[in-house]
């Protein structure tokens, strides 16, 4: 009987070790969608129109699923609108970034201040 108990303990130990390795981790804090790849596209100098489309699609999806968008998402979209000449949309995006993430306030104010000039 003792042998059986010990073998079970050993198997449980193995299973726990194995499972902790392949648990997949906790749920992410944010909905990432196309954000990373679109930032890569932007930094690589690719065309902006498709980037606005891709991020707008993410925005819709996140809002309909009530998921949080990551730091910088709204600011990225704002930057794209700014380059496209849509100032109102850009300002709205920078303001949203500031609301969602108060740490962005100093920088968002800097960007919004440049608009005021």
């Amino acid at each position, binding site marked *: 009987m003792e042998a059986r108990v010990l073998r079970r303990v050993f198997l449980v130990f193995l299973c726990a070790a194995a499972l902790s390795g392949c648990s997949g981790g906790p749920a992410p804090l944010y909905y990432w969608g196309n954000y990373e790849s679109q930032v890569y596209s932007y930094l690589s100098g690719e065309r902006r129109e498709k980037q606005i489309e891709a991020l707008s699609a993410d925005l819709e999806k996140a809002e309909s699923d009530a998921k949080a968008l990551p*730091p910088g998402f709204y600011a990225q979209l704002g930057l794209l609108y700014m380059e496209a000449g849509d100032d109102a949309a850009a300002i709205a995006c920078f303001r949203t970034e500031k609301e969602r*993430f108060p740490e962005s306030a100093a920088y968002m104010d800097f960007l919004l201040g440049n608009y005021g000039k």
Partner: protein
Amino acid sequence: MLKRSFAALPKAPLLAALLGAGILLSACVSPPQKDYTAFRESRPYSILIMPPVNLSPDMKAAPTFLSASIRPLAEAGYYVIPVSLSSETFRQNGISAAEEAQAIRPERLREIFGADAALYLTITRFGASYALIDSVVAAAASARLVDLRSGREIWSGSANVSEGSTNASGDLFGMLLTAAASQILNTISDRAYTAGRRAAGELLSAGKTGGVLYGPYNPNYGTD
């Protein structure tokens, strides 16, 4: 055969021996403990990712690492200053080289971006290299996290990711052909991009030995 010997041995000593071996092995492989005192004192809420210094010959290294560094830091629980905008701000202020940007005083960075800390990245390897028999894709970088309020370094780390294209057949001519073909494929494929993302993830994720601490937006903040 293993089953038979398992059945033959007394169980308790075997289990103890296995547990003991695990502890001994982990002691052998665990890296020296990092000192997180400065990090804990700093308690940064936001991080500015500086334009990375790129020591590789591949132009895609910097955009790859910049874009791939956002997620691990944001998921760790930090506000990451929007990367495209900060890049634009540097550019529009006449800062074209990463070395120039990285030489700016912490107080000035804090003034403009309002970040609590800045991440200084140096990309040491990126892209595919043709090594006669095999074609390896690699991405490696080191990073320092500096508190912009005190100017102190609070953390540093590095990551090195590489994957080779292996030829199963084993004959030399076949291997040379495979290496050449995969060199072409590697340079036009996104294997380097994938390796870069993995390297950034390994470098900047929280919840691992030697990694950054959890930030304020993560429920695990303060537990590590």
